[in-house]
């Protein structure tokens, strides 16, 4: 069954006519062409599909768009402001926190949610916030380092993002 859906993604409202049983992940990737959000397991186990709904991390593979109408969805494509990268994006690239890159979008969005609510998180806070995002490449070291770098920029006011 299809229905009309109003979904606000990365600051833009989309009117969609799509199957109501489709997950947010499917709608983002297939209907909106936002393929930066990844399928890892489709069971809410890996965190690769993490996006933000009103700033809170949710798993797009378990979310139904019909329930998210009126909420502000942020995906990896919505992190940068125009051509200006979000500090997390810059730090992930410069510090080699993205190896294969498959967990990267979800990882950065979980980190963004943390940094938006906690200006000066401890290493433990970061570990807690990102524990639901699996990464098989990095051993998490460089990811931790990247998030800490942005946190310290943020707390010393260096960051523009």
């Amino acid at each position, binding site marked *: 069954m299809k229905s009309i859906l109003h979904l606000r993604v990365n600051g833009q409202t989309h009117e969609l006519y799509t199957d109501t049983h489709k997950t947010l992940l499917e709608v983002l*990737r297939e209907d909106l062409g*936002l*393929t*930066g*959000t*990844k*399928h*890892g*397991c*489709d*069971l809410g*186990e*890996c965190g*690769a599909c993490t996006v933000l709904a009103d700033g809170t991390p949710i798993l797009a593979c378990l979310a139904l768009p019909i329930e998210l109408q009126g909420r502000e969805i942020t*995906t*990896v*494509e919505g*992190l*940068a402001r125009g051509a200006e*990268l979000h500090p*997390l*994006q*810059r730090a*992930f*690239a*410069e*510090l*080699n926190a*993205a*190896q*294969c*890159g*498959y*967990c*990267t*979008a979800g990882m*950065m969005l979980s980190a963004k949610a943390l940094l938006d609510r906690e200006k000066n998180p401890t290493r433990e806070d*970061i*570990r*807690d916030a*990102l*524990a*639901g*995002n*699996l*990464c*098989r*490449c*990095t*051993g*998490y*070291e*460089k*990811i*931790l380092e990247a998030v800490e770098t942005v946190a310290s920029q943020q707390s010393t006011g260096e960051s523009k993002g």
Partner: protein
Amino acid sequence: MPVIGAPLAKIDSWDKVIGAAKYADDMSLPRMLHARILRSTMPHARIVSIDTRGAEELPGVVAVITGRDVPIEYGILPSSQDEQALCVDKVRFVGDAVAAVAALDAETAERALQLIHVEYEPLTPIVTMNEALDETRDAIHTGAHADHHNIHKMVALEFGDLDAGFAEADYILEDTYFYQGNTHLALENHAALASFSPDGHLTLWSSTQTPHYVHRALAKTLELPASRIRVVAAAIGGGFGGKTDPFSHEIVACKLAMLTGRPVKITLTRQEVFYCHRGRHPVLMWVKMGVRQDGEPTALHFRTLLDGGAYGSYGVASTYYTGALQTVTYKIPAYKFEGMRVFTNKPPCGPKRGHGTPQPRFALEIHLDKIARHLGLDPAAYRKQFIVEDKTKTVNHLTITTCGLSECIDRVVEASGFGGEKREARSEIHESKIENQKSKIKNGLGLACGSYLSGAGLPIYWNQMPHSGVIVKVDRGGGVAVFCGSTDIGQGSTSLLAYIAAEEFGIDVRDVRVITADTDLTPVDLGSYSSRVTVMTGNACISAIRPLKQKILDAAAEKLLVPAESLSFRDGEIICEDDDARRLKWTEAIALAEAKHGTLSGTGSYKPPKRAGPYKGSGVGISPSYSYAACVAQVSVDIETGQVRVEKIWLAHDGGRALNPILVEGQVEGSVYMGVGEALMEEMTYRGGLHKAPSLLDYKSLTMRDMPPVETFLVETNDPEGPFGAKEAGQGPLLPVPPAIANAIYDAIGVRIDETPITPDKILKALEEQEKGRAARFGPKNFPAVKYPEPIRVEPPEDAPRLERKKG
């Protein structure tokens, strides 16, 4: 500004952080169909009939195929062509592919699978290695695919005089070990998109580490000329060896595209990926080692028994690898290796990070720890006495170019305070743990070492051609394009080519573009496996660039009226070293060179040195160079619950010169992560032939909460075989981690856990044994009476460690 050695961002990181990198599942084409595969629910059965009519009649279904449509056998090794894209007569594991559907959308394809009726005649599944050795059971494969019945491969090699070696020993230790199978679990599930044009050209985009081998398998199974097939590796969401075989779904997507004339995409589910597997072999090992009173090894006898699962895959190589690299760390004057791989009705095993070597390394390094403890020697100082030397050979004819192991040991020992007396010098974390520990928490430190090859010395199929090719083209605008068949699986191999080109030409990395992994556009590179890419593509890239540089220098020298030898490439200019007023901008120089020599491009190739020893099987283990690693693990063990926590890992890696230190660190940290997971929790477990945990929730892996801090030391030997002195970094650092953890647990609680994963129940059982005054150990009790063939006896090379006769 030097590029080599600088901590630069990878050139493809930018696309990854904005979500623009295109993985195979992200691609779509107009009129694209979606395909799904029906997989066997039986571990072992004959296919009596397949009725696809129900599926064909479902609206939205465009094509249905079975094994009859793609019957030609294939497999990664020429000697193991035992797979079919869709099974024709027989299924051999739960998950074996049986039929496939292409439909307008994935849901319809999935629904159609349920309408396919397969009639099976069940056969008794062979699940354990002991069952596989029982000749009264059915054979999983018939004919030439197995050495004997369910024994896929048997190997026996003897180097030097083993009996004399044991006769010289003052102490001989025998023990049995088991390393459990586990899987790659790359975060990206395999995906493939195939497109067939009316003129007979087939294109496949796939998440593969080895497009060249997929290219060959497609040509064979689809009976198309390879010249009309193009294989492109998309961005790859992690590999670790899990994407190095040609896969059923790749062939199926192509076949469906050919039949329907429409593009076909197939993306595996997480569960399917668990069943496709090709991961770490479960290996049972028996080790007998003789040493003198001071610990000097006199002889080593090593037996392995590998549970291969249902197909050959890389298994022949895996079997040899369980015996090949025991000799490249410590001097061993006499060595006998017996290996055997059996077929069972489980998902096929193959290469996972360290391919066939983490298992024997686990056994060997625990074995050495036991010997050191028995002889009252410090495990670190003990190992250092017998480390192999530069420019020597091992008893099994492997060539050591450089070995930084001694320094690696020093670095981790110093940083961790390993070595008994210096407990107070240990890290702050450890101190606070000791302070805060309740008596039920015990702390320990363990040390282990490892070594891995920098690329397999031989290709997978016999040929004399280069292992890696590179084309470099210089554009009039100053841009340099590097074309290479290599696949970047996240390790940074694409970036490395850019760094090398930028360093050689003295230009900005951003002025280099790298085009990789496209069989139409790029010269062959064999792929991302065996840690071959840095050394082989790096050397090929340099060999493509150097003659081109000469042309540019010729032209510049003419213009500047100085000898070409006096000129060098630096910071975007060609500068006369004797008179730096004489200089040309890079773009000026290449314009002159193009005017003088024509289009500026060059090709380069790399073939590893020919080093195979004089025996059958000597092709496995040879390499341009070996990396070395030493690891100290600090653990805390809760003796009430058996819970082990890895508190910290110190790891020093000799990967030769680090071309980009943050990429090498990334490989070390990722290897440590995977090693800790394998040591403590990751395992493939089955009930009958059914996977017990084919999901990311049930298959345990470390989260960020579980990952211990890692202190990494890069020991930069300058290896003569590597580009700018580099060796491998992607796999070697994993090897010492599991045995270091096992040795640390012994240090903490005095029990030996001789198998992985080291789970709380095993700790508690061993503690129970300790309490009862029995051998405080958990591990395999015995090694089955396996009939290995008569060994091939090989004379060790001249410069290998020699057994000095001191007795008799």
